[in-house]
């Protein structure tokens, strides 16, 4: 049960993010929901690499013992970098939409339809 806690947290955070994306029409809040989903994915990846009692995978002055998986941590880091790029891009879009449409609402941002 305890070992599964991180994964439960992943599910909770991802669900909150998805519910925010689906129910809020404010574009800034939708981007926040996306960031929540991203955080959940990052947490998921890091939890995957955890070994019970493992130490940080740094060879400098490392004590003997099991190490946690470093690959997932590298993946998480890459995803954080990508997440910064996408969030910055999406927020700039929100700013431009707000400036041109006078509102940052998904219900207003629907001139393209049908």
């Amino acid at each position, binding site marked *: 049960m305890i070992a599964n806690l991180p994964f439960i947290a992943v599910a909770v955070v991802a669900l909150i993010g998805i519910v925010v994306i*689906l129910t809020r*029409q404010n574009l800034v809040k*939708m981007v926040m929901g996306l960031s929540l989903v991203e955080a959940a994915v990052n947490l998921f990846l890091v939890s995957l690499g955890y070994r019970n009692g493992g130490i940080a995978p740094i060879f400098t002055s490392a004590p003997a013992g099991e190490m946690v998986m470093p690959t997932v941590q590298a993946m998480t880091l890459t995803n954080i970098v990508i997440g910064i790029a996408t969030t910055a891009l999406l927020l700039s879009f929100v700013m431009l939409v707000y400036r041109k449409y006078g509102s940052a609402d998904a219900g207003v941002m*629907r001139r393209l339809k*049908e």
Partner: protein
Amino acid sequence: MIEIFSLSTGTGSWNPVVWLIALAVAFIVVLIIWATGERSYRREGGAAAPFLSGNAEPEKGEVQIRAGNLYWGFTEALSGYYKHLVPLHTGILNDYVLWFLGTMATIILVLAVVR
């Protein structure tokens, strides 16, 4: 020679080169028939002007049929279908996400849960 250029589709084959030659032959036949036609036909003198029950011919720009009027009958006949389909394209981002996640959930159900 012919086999090199023909695309075999398992049940048949398709040869664009032969098709093109046939097209050229047909074109030549048409040209010959056309050339045997009446040579004394004159365009001037009102022979080629449209006759609209004696009314004057309207300006060209007015009789141009714009795109919106084409296939009116088609969309009208299928209006029951379009009535349901078109409103689905709401243009609201939340709906886009909902459709995406809904489809994904369906595929997960079919592939992983039901088996």
